[in-house]
């Protein structure tokens, strides 16, 4: 897929994220829009995962630790053919498997996440199993910057370094906002890079909306032999919709009809500009 095709995909994904959130009248809008370009690169360029190989023990693993931005994951999984996209019309409805956090009831989902600080330990377990069996699959997990104060992240970071898990890549969706304010105001975890480096990780920064940069960075994995890799993806919460960008209230805000119209108009303009 060319970078231009990926850019178009992301616009389509953003449209669908808003459409299904609007339909369900619920969702984590801002964070889904901040991480969607990362998911685009992962599923369309990096991961060896498809509906066809999903039961293979050799598939790459993707665990979404920031489970609340599940709408972004659903839209990408539907696009990759894991399930019919119309299933998403049931999102958050009675008896639907498409609930507000990922579960394995949905094909393509590796783990039931939603409580924060769980993705990295699970990913570490997967990566150790791969090393034990000399398997070549890689393990990716996406964390929110707001979940970094969860102690399990740091416990698992130690284990990842201890076991030299260079088959593991954690990505932080660093949009710098969480439900109560900026991450710096709530619980300042900066400098994230130095902390992980001190924990024995190899760390790189990337613009989480720049496809060329992300493709290049993911292509450089593992950043160092015998070290787990961390990608700090600098993103914009609400990216792609002017009135949502960097606005706290869109953490789980749902657009109304008028706001949807404006967003769709902006997506059309963005599409024309690609």
């Amino acid at each position, binding site marked *: 897929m060319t970078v231009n095709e990926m850019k178009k995909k992301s616009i389509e994904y953003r449209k669908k994220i808003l459409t299904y959130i609007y339909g369900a009248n619920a969702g984590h809008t801002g964070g889904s829009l901040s991480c969607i370009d990362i998911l685009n690169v992962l599923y369309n360029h990096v991961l060896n995962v498809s509906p066809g190989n999903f039961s293979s*023990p050799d598939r790459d*693993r993707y665990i979404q630790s920031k489970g609340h931005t599940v709408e972004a994951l659903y839209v990408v999984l539907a696009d990759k053919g894991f399930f019919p996209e119309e299933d998403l019309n049931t999102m958050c409805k009675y008896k639907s498997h498409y609930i507000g956090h990922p*579960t*394995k009831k949905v094909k393509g989902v*590796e*783990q*039931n*996440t*939603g*409580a924060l600080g*769980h993705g*990295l*330990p*699970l*990913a*570490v*377990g*997967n*990566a*150790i*199993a*791969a090393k*034990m*069996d000399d398997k070549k699959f890689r393990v990716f997990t996406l964390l929110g910057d707001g979940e970094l104060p969860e*102690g*399990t992240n740091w*416990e*698992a970071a*130690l*284990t990842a370094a*201890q*076991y030299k898990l260079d088959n593991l890549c954690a990505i932080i969706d660093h949009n710098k906002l969480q439900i109560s304010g900026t991450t710096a105001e709530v619980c300042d975890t900066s400098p994230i890079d130095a902390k992980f480096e001190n924990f024995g990780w190899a760390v790189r920064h990337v613009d989480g909306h720049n496809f060329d940069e992300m493709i290049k960075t993911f292509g450089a994995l593992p950043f160092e032999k015998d070290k787990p890799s961390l990608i700090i993806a600098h993103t914009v919460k609400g990216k792609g919709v002017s009135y949502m960008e960097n606005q706290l209230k869109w953490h789980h805000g749902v657009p109304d009809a008028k706001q949807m119209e404006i967003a769709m108009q902006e997506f059309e303009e963005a599409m024309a500009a690609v």
Partner: protein
Amino acid sequence: MEAVAENTMVKGKANLEVFSSTLQELANADKNIVAVTSDSRGSGKLVPFAQKFPKQIVEIGIAEQNLVGVAAGLASAGKKAFAVSPACFLTARALEQIKNDVAYSDNPVKLVGISAGVSYGALGSTHHSLHDFAVLRAINNMTIVAPADNYETAQSIKLAAAMTKPVYLRFGKKNMPGLDAVDKSPFQFGKGRIIREGNDIAFIATGETVYPAWQAAEKLSKDFGIEATVISMHTIKPLDYDLLEATAKKCKAIITVEEHSIFGGLGEACASFLLQNQIVKSFQIVGIPDEYTVTGSQNDIFNHYGISETGLAKTAVELLKTVK
């Protein structure tokens, strides 16, 4: 490897020792058997395991939440992961990981709570697990097992290894005499073992309290001519409702015994079933009451709360007085 046979009242080893030897036996034949430890290989008697199978042990360090999360990741990638940590820490500190990463995500981790109940005695309540049955019973997709003797422990480890669903095993470090079952059918989770039969009263006990229940039953027979049934209800969930119902209908009174809070454990599980099935009998839950636990060794604590030959015999005599 020494096989553990069902054996009458011989002086046994600690169930913890049997866990270790059984796990080694399994690991020898299956490289997917993995022990995950939180600096607990010593207390889990897993030092020989680590020496023999260095590639089949994952040391996490003292971080129980990470222990369970990593074990769930190992299990989801095909490993038969035994997450071994003192029951007190495993089921309290790592409860959210047990709930989400193991039970909800359906990753077949074998959670092994060692030195359970009040095994740590005088180390105090930080090191006691008197809540684990209660909290785990309320979590969907969890089998809960407390083996009574070496035989039940060995069988439980083997069954757990073969299980494709989450399971929690808990046991202590005291030497446990073997208990003979009346029925010699194969050991299975969810099927209690009848250790002794009698029609006056029943002791439905679990884990390390089955032996004192059996002692009490022998004493009742000898001193009072009271004949007691003794059941090792090793599986707390799913509970053996058929055996419970049959026993309750046969006997005049029931005493449940557990090394656990009297709240939310075996006793309340039995009471709930019986009452909801209109089986009303004289009934007593023996366990650790809801108070600041008395200090002392495991034996001291058992004796203090009547989890002993004389204590349970006395409770039985008193309870039978309430039978109309």
